[in-house]
């Protein structure tokens, strides 16, 4: 049945009308189309949530600004955070995984194509539901509209007593939907990797990208239930008279924080590991060397995954845990630094002695490496509990996690876009516009997020809709806001580039980067069936073997 549908779309493709093409997308179960739909939709949400961030920065550019009302501001940062994590980060990962994993392991589709489509639609409607709250949640006497409880929605602010109207309900329900989407998509990726690898592709011959996707998707399965469960508990509190988090009736506010961060911390790694994945593919190709220490890289990632489920309370050092509790979570957090350090060194080792081609994908990877290094080090500072007591919930933390998510995750994704775009469209992204994107974004990023650490050190708490003059924050905030504008210009270059190059870009050919993994062995864009005959591999770099019969990898395998 599924294969019949694929064939049908294939026949109709050339010269069909817009409505038919749309229909094609709605009924598709093809992993490549779904992958692109995921990424495209995520980029749409990125623009919306990015505009919200811009509005937030405009409000904070000068002290005592009245551009945004307090409640409007509070909704903006809640929606910005929620959307960036669940409607941008998660679907980009799902999209990359969908598109690339089957190609990289040499198979024709995901293990469960229909489930795959289901996952996408859950995500899309979940996302739309979240934004629909602006129209649909006027609630009691005008209180409500979009959720305004912050993306981690601490109890008891989310209880009915403090969060009237339906904003919080929309937050819960829309995330439950997207979580269902993420869960099935994770199951799908894992099943695909474990069941559908082409002949010869043992686990230790998979591209690192695939390995890291496995780890990330395992973590999704591990972490998301904690969020979903606590959200259901919150719903029970709100509508069925439960008292899990209702402190007035003996419930616990702290238990919500534990639940949330049991999900929330792994979530950070769920997002950053796919960035590692992109970097681990791109750095070797553009250094012209295999990844340094492949088994160690795999081991380090698995370690990161394991350790990162035992560090959650480092988000809660100020809730008044015992000194023993604080010490435990400090130690486990420091331990994450070890495998993370190993990864950075291995990327360095890959570049060392190579011939580094400073093309766009690589340049974004280099940006990633510098930025992720700094983010890691500010992370170490945050793990020093007494220092954390000063830094947590201040702008320093905001700067730190934007460093990981924008400087790290997003840079990695940008690198991936430039690298795999030619595969998906058959055309290269424009090089000049790409460099404009890089430099604007790079400068804007550093203006904003380097600067943002300092108001935190000067005592500025996060999530304030305004501040008084005279505390040393004005200039710093102004620069921060300025950088946001420059970043926006950079993103605009990317969007224009993506749209324009789709039809007009330079034709890429099957293998524009002279790369080594299987996705480059098929046409760009790949046919619906991916490979005419399923490939057989003998090493980690099948295309290297093909191109260098005199010195193939499998000799050392």
């Amino acid at each position, binding site marked *: 049945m599924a294969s019949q549908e694929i064939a049908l779309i294939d026949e109709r493709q050339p010269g069909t009308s817009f409505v038919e093409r749309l229909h094609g997308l709605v009924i598709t179960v093809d992993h490549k189309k779904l992958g692109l739909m995921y990424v495209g939709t995520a980029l749409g949400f990125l623009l919306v949530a990015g505009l919200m961030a811009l509005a937030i920065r405009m409000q904070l550019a000068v002290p005592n600004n009245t551009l945004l009302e*307090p*409640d409007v501001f*509070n909704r903006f940062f809640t929606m910005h955070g929620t959307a960036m994590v669940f409607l941008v980060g998660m679907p980009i990962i799902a999209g990359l995984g969908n598109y690339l994993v089957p190609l990289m392991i040499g198979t024709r589709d995901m293990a469960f194509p229909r489930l795959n489509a289901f996952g996408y639609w859950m995500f899309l409607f979940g996302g739309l539901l979240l934004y629909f709250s602006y129209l649909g949640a006027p609630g009691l006497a005008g209180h409500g509209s979009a959720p305004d409880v912050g993306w981690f929605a*601490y109890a*008891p*602010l989310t209880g009915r007593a403090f969060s009237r109207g339906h904003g919080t309900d929309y937050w819960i329900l829309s995330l439950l939907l997207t979580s269902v989407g993420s869960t099935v998509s994770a199951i799908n990726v894992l099943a695909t990797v474990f069941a559908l690898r082409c002949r010869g592709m043992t686990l230790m011959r998979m591209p690192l990208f695939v390995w890291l996707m496995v780890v990330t998707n395992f973590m999704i399965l591990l972490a998301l239930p904690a969020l979903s469960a606590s959200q259901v508990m919150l719903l029970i509190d709100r509508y069925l008279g439960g008292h899990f988090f209702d402190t007035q009736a003996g419930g616990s*506010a702290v238990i919500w924080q534990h639940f949330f961060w049991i999900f929330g911390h792994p979530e950070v790694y769920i997002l950053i590991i796919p960035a590692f994945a992109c970097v681990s593919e791109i750095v070797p190709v553009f*250094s*012209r*060397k*295999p990844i340094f*220490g492949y088994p160690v890289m795999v081991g380090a990632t698995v370690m990161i995954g394991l350790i990162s489920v035992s560090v959650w309370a480092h988000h809660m050092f*100020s*809730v*008044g845990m015992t*000194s023993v509790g*604080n*010490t435990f979570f*400090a130690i486990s957090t*420091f*331990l994450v*630094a*070890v495998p993370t*350090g190993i990864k950075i060194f291995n990327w*360095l*080792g890959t*570049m060392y*002695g*190579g011939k*580094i*081609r400073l093309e766009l994908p690589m340049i974004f990877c*280099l940006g990633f490496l*510098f930025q992720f290094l700094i983010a890691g*080090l500010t992370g170490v*500072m945050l*793990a*020093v509990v*007494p*220092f954390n*007591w*000063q830094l*947590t*919930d*201040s702008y320093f933390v905001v700067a730190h996690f934007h460093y990981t998510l924008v400087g790290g995750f997003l840079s990695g994704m940008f690198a991936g876009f430039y690298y795999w775009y030619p595969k998906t469209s058959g055309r290269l992204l424009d090089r000049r516009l790409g*460099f404009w994107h890089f*430099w604007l974004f790079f400068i804007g990023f550093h203006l904003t997020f*380097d*600067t943002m650490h*300092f108001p935190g*050190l000067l*005592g500025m*708490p*996060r999530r304030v*809709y*305004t*501040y008084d003059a005279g505390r*040393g924050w004005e*200039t710093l905030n102004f620069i921060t806001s300025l950088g946001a504008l420059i970043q926006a210009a950079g993103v605009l270059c990317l969007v224009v580039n993506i749209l324009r190059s789709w039809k007009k870009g330079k034709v890429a050919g099957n293998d524009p980067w002279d790369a080594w993994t299987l996705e480059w062995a098929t046409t760009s864009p790949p046919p619906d069936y991916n490979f005419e005959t399923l490939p057989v591999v003998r090493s980690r770099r099948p295309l290297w073997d093909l191109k*260098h019969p005199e*010195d193939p990898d499998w000799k050392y395998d």
Partner: protein
Amino acid sequence: MRPSLSLRPGILRALALLCACAAWLIIAGHVTQAFGNPSGTTNIFRPLSQPAQEVQELSLLVIAICTVIFLVVAGLLAYTIIRFRQRAGDEASEPPQIYGSNQIEMAWTVLPILIVFVLILVTSRSIANIQNREASPDALRATVIGHQWWWEIRYPKLGIVTANELHVPASDASGRRPTFLKLESADVAHSFWVPQLAGKTDLIPNRENLMWIEPTEIGTYLGNCAEYCGTQHARMLIRVVVQTPEEFERWVGEQQQAAAEEASAAEGRVVFFANSCVNCHTIRGTTAQGMFGPDLTHMMSRQTLASGAAPNTPAGLRAWVRDPQAVKVGCLMPNMQMTDEEVDKIVAYLQTLK
């Protein structure tokens, strides 16, 4: 191909560097400026009390370690990029294919482990130092209760209730005078953060948290609520007034007195008690026993109104009583819809509450 294009990134790179330097100069200049103030700043690197001082020492150590790591790794990275970048005309051959090295791998596993070990030691020692400090029986104790969006402050042993300004005695050569704070919340989570005195500790409903401070310099210290708590989270400022022991004693004496009853303000008193002000506010020694808003018994002794939303001046007070929503949008004191005349009278009365 490449040569013509590589010029452009070159220029851009230079521009970027220039911009970055300019930005850093501005930032650096600005930060050092803020280092100058004694008390009254919220700079975490200007601590004037334990445990903030201990935290600062530890922070500087950690920052130093991280800076060294950064310089080494970033240096290696920069060196690698410059040294091993592909040069024009060198595209034909591939470099030697190296797959890894167990010795090198070992080296860069062990090194981070050693650093982490040091960090664990200094961190756990400092946690224990700060968290496990026992209160001496005669130490001053206060309870801070977070409300949306103001602070209730109680001194149970002294029988004082006030708001938004915590008074404590300074320690000096004649003795250590730490203050132990019990933190609670009446509604949602808040966080007590006065950077010059200590790191933050949350105020969580249905839970008791403890922290202590031991300031050595007199002055007024500023801080914010640091846990998002709803609409006016931004205007939930806390002030800590550190006084000499004698001044502190005098302040305690004043606060312990009943509310003033000046004949000149009798009219305003009548208006106040005729309105629902009494349902939300307490004025000790009167029938006003509301608990929802700040205690007003000695409200004129405070520097600001509504947690720092307005200065406590006649004009500020008038604006507040006239329409609190115009001063602090969304705050939990409603506009009482009073005539100008009534407002004047009430303000006159409130001003006698010294």
